[in-house]
């Protein structure tokens, strides 16, 4: 519930930011700005805008009203710390937004801390706002679920109306997504998603702190929850499963939330998600048909049926859609439907298909992508029909079981395309028919309609003994147990990993190694323990790459999805801190030559800082033989390490692009004579210089 006006709104209050220029109506720009905030799903501090643009006040209020952003925080001062409101003593403000202020407060009679959502006094004149408050209270009063923020009560006292709610200390998912975006922009891998935002190196900061890792189910610790940007699909799925559980409970009690979005999913101190803000919730029996034009919800997250607002029935499946969009954004850090204004966003929600999540983040596992895509189907009948189904599929993904959702095949994509472009379709019936035939042939030869033969790895459940052993190990390491016991634990874990490798449970092993890697980097274990563990894990990781390499090469995966999962495990190890592991992964990917690995290899190349790892990846890119790598390799002419520049030069010579001389132009001025000479000799030998 933070107020986050866009970064470019720093002009002086009341001014247009264009002093001295002829009066330009600032309204369009301000409305664009507000639309952007709305699109992002963030709260708008209406009071701040009204204060900043007093001349526009009437028109802004109208805008807030039409957009469903009630101008509720425009009146009434915030409650200072120490002030009391009935039985509550205010401790401090923890947020504010369109619905008012949120405070941490102590309920004096029960000596408990609560969150107090207070409707500003002026807003009491707005019956719609009061109704919304009351609705939230009455809706949630019927619910009691650990994944739903509990509402203790609603009161209207004098000039105030307020809700007393369970206090959730963590950030909401919108703030978390902001942190992830910022980290990605700055090339940081680990992101603290609880407590104060940290710009620096989390891995460095984390030494001395006890943290929750990237696997769900880790025990609660006080210092924070960390996301590994390269490996948080499981955490996202766990968050989604939590939210789906909350929705299942609400739906079972006949309540539709209607405003599922990142800012309404709160991360608790236990690393689990709680659903909040039932202010737009409606009872199923009250829903019937919404009135024309009576649009509710946050534009970027509303379902097509909500966006259309044409007497379409809004039911539980709208919440499923919104949760799907929320997961889409969390996984890709992009909203599926971006537009220049609200109307544009709504139009796109109704008419266009978003890009597949894996196109925006290649690390998203295929199964999780399939689940998300099914949840955001435009046709409610094609979505999960209940939150329970949705949550169950997410848990199947978490447990490495086959999911029930099926990816859209080529025929499905074609049919969808035709449906969305009827004009073009009518103009080229023949072409469409040919495409359809091709799609059918393709489908019949690739078994896309048949049951997927997912290679089912062993179950990895949250209370898996192995996972528990890992967690116990790291807790003990942080707690400083005696050397002998510590080493025994380290070697017990190593032996488990070794056994997993021997059993051939490669996917399970990958999950285990990913968890270990994150913990090694983030835990407060002594340097010697980290070295010891890394050293003992090295041979296991090298063995894992080798086994994965062989599994892909021999076609053990059987399906494209299975193969991608195995390739993904190798690709993850490209980022391993140990150069030998990276070398093995790079060599394997180069040898396998799958074009789909290009993105992961370029990503790892961009993120690694060690010379050994980078030159191994560069050599593998040459073996992969994809021209898409050429511009990235050519950029390495600026690399400060001569060995990296030389490796890039050799890789470019190997790839031999059409404009080789031009591509190698930058190397002509290299600071190392032997690199310049290599370029000249190579071009001369090829008769091009």
């Amino acid at each position, binding site marked *: 519930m933070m107020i986050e006006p866009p970064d470019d709104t720093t002009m002086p209050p009341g001014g247009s930011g264009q002093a001295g220029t002829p009066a330009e109506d600032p309204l369009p720009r301000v409305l664009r700005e507000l639309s952007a905030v709305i699109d992002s799903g963030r709260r708008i501090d209406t009071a701040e805008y009204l204060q900043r643009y007093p001349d526009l006040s009437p028109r802004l209020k109208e805008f807030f009203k039409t957009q469903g952003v009630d101008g509720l925080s425009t009146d009434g001062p915030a409650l200072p710390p120490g002030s009391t409101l009935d039985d509550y003593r205010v401790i401090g403000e923890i947020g504010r937004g369109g619905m008012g202020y949120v405070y941490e407060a102590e309920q004096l009679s029960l000596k408990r801390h609560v969150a107090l959502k207070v409707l500003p006094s002026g807003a009491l004149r707005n019956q719609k706002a009061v109704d919304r408050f009351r609705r939230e209270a009455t809706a949630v009063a019927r619910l009691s679920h650990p994944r739903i923020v509990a509402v203790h009560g609603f009161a209207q006292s004098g000039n105030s109306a307020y809700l007393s709610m369970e206090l959730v200390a963590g950030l909401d998912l919108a703030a978390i997504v902001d942190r992830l975006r910022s980290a990605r922009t700055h090339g940081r891998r680990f992101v603290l998603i609880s407590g104060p935002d940290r710009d620096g190196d989390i891995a460095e900061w984390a030494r001395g702190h006890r943290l929750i890792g990237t696997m769900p189910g880790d025990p609660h610790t006080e210092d924070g929850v960390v996301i590994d940007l390269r490996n948080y699909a499981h955490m996202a799925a766990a968050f989604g499963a939590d939210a789906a559980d909350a929705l299942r409970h609400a739906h079972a009690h006949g309540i539709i939330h209607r405003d599922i979005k990142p800012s309404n999913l709160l991360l608790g101190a236990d690393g689990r998600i709680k659903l909040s803000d039932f202010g737009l919730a409606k009872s199923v029996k009250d829903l019937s048909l919404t009135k024309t034009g009576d649009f509710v919800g946050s534009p970027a997250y509303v379902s097509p049926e909500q966006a259309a607002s044409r007497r379409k029935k809004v039911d539980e499946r709208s919440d499923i859609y919104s949760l799907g969009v929320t997961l889409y954004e969390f996984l890709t850090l992009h909203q599926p439907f971006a537009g220049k204004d609200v109307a544009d966003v709504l139009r796109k929600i109704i008419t266009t298909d978003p890009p597949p999540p894996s196109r925006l983040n290649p690390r998203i596992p295929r199964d999780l992508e399939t689940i998300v895509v099914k949840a955001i189907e435009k046709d409610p009948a094609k979505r999960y029909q209940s939150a329970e189904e949705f949550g169950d599929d997410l848990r199947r993904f978490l447990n490495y079981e086959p999911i029930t959702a099926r990816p859209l095949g080529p025929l499905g994509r074609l049919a969808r395309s035709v449906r969305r472009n009827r004009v073009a379709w009518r103009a080229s019936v023949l072409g469409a028919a040919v495409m359809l035939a091709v799609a059918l042939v393709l489908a019949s030869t690739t078994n896309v309609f048949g049951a997927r033969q997912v290679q089912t790895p062993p179950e990895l459940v949250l209370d898996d003994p192995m996972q528990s052993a890992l967690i116990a190990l790291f807790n003990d390491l942080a707690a400083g147990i005696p050397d002998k016991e510590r080493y025994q634990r*380290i070697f017990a874990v190593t032996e488990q990993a070794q056994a997993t490798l021997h059993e051939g449970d490669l996917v399970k092993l990958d999950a285990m190694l990913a968890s270990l890697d994150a913990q090694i980097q983030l835990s407060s274990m002594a340097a010697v323990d980290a070295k010891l563990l890394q*050293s003992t894990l090295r041979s296991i990781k090298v063995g894992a790459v080798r086994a994965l390499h062989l599994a892909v090469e021999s076609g053990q995966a059987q399906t494209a999805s299975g193969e991608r999962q195995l390739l993904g495990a190798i690709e993850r190890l490209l980022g391993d801190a*140990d150069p030998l592991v990276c070398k093995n992964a790079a060599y394997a990917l180069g040898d396998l030559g799958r074009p789909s690995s290009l993105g992961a290899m370029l990503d790892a190349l961009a993120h690694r800082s060690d*010379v050994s790892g980078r030159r191994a990846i560069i050599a593998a890119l040459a073996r992969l033989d994809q021209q898409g790598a050429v511009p990235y390799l050519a950029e390495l002419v600026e690399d400060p390490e*001569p*060995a990296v520049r030389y490796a890039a030069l050799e890789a470019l010579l190997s790839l031999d692009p059409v404009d080789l001389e031009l591509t190698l132009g930058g190397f002509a001025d290299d600071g190392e004579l*032997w690199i310049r000479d290599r370029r000249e000799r190579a071009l001369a030998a090829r008769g091009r210089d």
Partner: protein
Amino acid sequence: MPARGRAPAIVARRAVLPLWIAVVSTLLPGCGAEPPPIGVLLPKSAVWGREAEQGLRLAYDELPEEGRPVLREADSGGTTQGAIDGFQMLVRSGATVVLGPFSTDTCIGTGVVADDLRVPFVSPSATAAVVTRDSDYALRVCYSDDEVARGLAAFATEDLELTRVALLVDLSRTYALGLAECFTDELARRHGRIVAEIGFWPDDEDLGDTLDRLVAVVDPETPKDEASVQAVFVAGFGRDIVPMLRGATDKRVEALVLLGADGWNGAELRQLIPGRVAAAYHTSHFSIEEQDPAVARFDAAYRARYGEAPSDMAALVYDAARVIFSVYDPRADGVMLRTRLRSVRRFGGVTGEIDLDFSGEPVGKSIVLEQIHDPGQPGFVRRL
């Protein structure tokens, strides 16, 4: 590691050294406080553990009887955990300097502990550059892998005038990765280049066609009447190419020159190479064929005492022990001994002259180059 990092399955447990050390310790004239011992961290189960013990014993017995330091031993078991445990135990028992551990991996782990405890150690045989780079209290008396790779690249381009080399990389060892990178860089600086690379795991069952695949490589920059691959640099142990040599069928393999670093002393390898390739060169820490008076004295003393020729490991441990004895002072603590070790200059070792620098590296230590001929022929070529 280098060289001898992996403990083979054969376990040669011998109680000779502990017994011997115990006797020495008991007989040591001691009055008042015990002088701090010198720690010895040996992988007793390693097949070369006996050679290391013999080298150490020879060096110790060369000391004047009066004032000999106490030696205290621990078994590293050849593992990182064992080395760390052993090192900590030795320091707890008062050791102010330690001989060992021996392999790169064990030294990396031990280096962290040594930095914490401020007690230096001297490794006879850990050759990876990272050993002394990452620890302030790690020193060694052997040359580094980087120097080996650079020396071989220089030899290939200058002496043999070879410029097109294929790389065979053992993907299971960090040691091999460092070798491969340094060799590639030095070769490139000398206008040679790697024209092909094949990674392998030593326990692969299908390595037989590896050399055939290498000679089949077609390099776009090589004139058609010349071989694309002139030489193969083995970034790994020499013994790993035995199955490759056995399985090679392409006649072009006979024109190849093999280049390598450590681990080329196996009898099988030495029997296989003559006639199957044009030549095979490898590096070594020590050669009894070298016409050097100090080496000759050591060789004679060793043979007289143990009835066999000294190995690389025996010579390296002999040198490491003598370096430590030369600076040891019972009044000095670990920090002071580190300073003394870093000040060792022009020390006459049988494995070459030792000049330790501030980082604990034996600067510019020479490397023995040997060629594998028919059995019985001398192999020493020269020092690099």
